[in-house]
């Protein structure tokens, strides 16, 4: 009886949790980037990974993307182990520029169409129009803001269950950040997708988040709902961060 209940619980968790970390540790030579992290994240949410520089945010994101292998423990995405082959379920937007500079925007879209089966070209073009990007422009001639916009278009045009974004707003001016945030809200499908992003721009991104994960010194300190932080703890996310990460 007990066993059956356990099995049902597992199934339910699988249906609701998109990310599952079980005692995950990541070591680099001479450094522990993530220490014994155990947590789960629900589906259909926009989730922020917050913490100071070097706290392990990007490491957590790369473990989810299957770009890093855990030194210990297991990472599961959508019920499957996060290996290099998880790329079909996960769209990963790196902090670094990973675009071919001699390509036009249109060529870049076509390249991604070829790379990913779940790439939705129609949605990509809708997003380009929304972001006021011209398909004929070459990547090398784009402003930093427009490169940021293009990267968001590429990530959100995939029908992947999980979309990971490393610092999507970092280094961009307020107008670009605003248009990226609006673009995200307009084009994410939270009925089928979950978004997880690392960010410094906490105050600005707060209205878009459902949930935050606080990370410091390689430790996942807390997973908390934004509504709880405000409703029960009577704090804004910025205040909560100061207290939690102090």
């Amino acid at each position, binding site marked *: 009886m007990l066993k059956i209940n356990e099995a049902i619980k597992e199934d339910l968790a699988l249906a609701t949790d998109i990310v599952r970390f079980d005692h995950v540790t990541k070591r680099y030579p001479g450094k522990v980037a993530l220490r014994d992290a155990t947590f789960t994240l629900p589906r259909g949410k926009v989730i922020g990974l917050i913490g100071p520089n070097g706290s392990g945010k990007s490491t957590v994101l790369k473990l989810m993307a299957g770009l890093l292998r855990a030194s210990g423990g297991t990472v599961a995405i959508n019920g499957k182990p996060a290996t290099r082959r998880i790329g079909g379920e996960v769209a990963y937007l790196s902090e670094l520029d990973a675009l071919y500079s001699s390509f036009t925007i249109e060529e870049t879209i076509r390249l991604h169409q070829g790379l990913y089966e779940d790439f939705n070209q129609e949605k990509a073009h809708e997003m380009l129009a929304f972001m006021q990007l011209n398909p004929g422009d070459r990547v090398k001639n784009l402003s930093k803001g427009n490169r940021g916009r293009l990267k968001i278009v590429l990530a959100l045009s995939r029908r992947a269950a999980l979309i990971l974004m490393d610092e999507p707003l970092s280094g961009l001016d307020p107008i670009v950040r605003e248009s990226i945030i609006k673009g995200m809200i307009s084009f994410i499908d939270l009925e089928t997708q979950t978004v997880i992003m690392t960010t410094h721009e906490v105050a600005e991104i707060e*209205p878009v*988040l*459902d949930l935050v994960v606080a990370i410091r010194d390689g430790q996942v300190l807390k997973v908390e709902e*934004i*509504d709880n932080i*405000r409703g029960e703890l009577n*704090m804004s996310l910025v205040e909560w961060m100061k207290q939690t990460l102090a």
Partner: protein
Amino acid sequence: MGEEFNSTQPIYHQLVQRVCRQIVGGVLRAGEKLPSVRDFAVRNSVNPNTVQRAYAELERLAVVESRRGLGTFVTEDAARLDELREQLKDNQITAFVLDMKEMGFSSEEIMEGVEEHLAEDK
């Protein structure tokens, strides 16, 4: 960007208050259709889940009703709308009076102050 949010109340709660104010203020009329969840979210730069939650709360308060496949509409129940108007008035006055009393103003001083202010406003 839409209006800013205060930092202590949940955002969905602030959205509920905004819509109620718009209804009482006549910006949204009885029977009028609210924007879709997505449009409302984009306009205010908030998460669609948050808007969903705000709409559910408004529906629980019987201020709006959702019609399957058609969207969400301001209620046409005039009694409910009158009640909402009274509720907002009460809330606002309660908060104001509490503030004033905390600062040590007497009921007479508050009344006098309000009357003077309203007379000047005319």
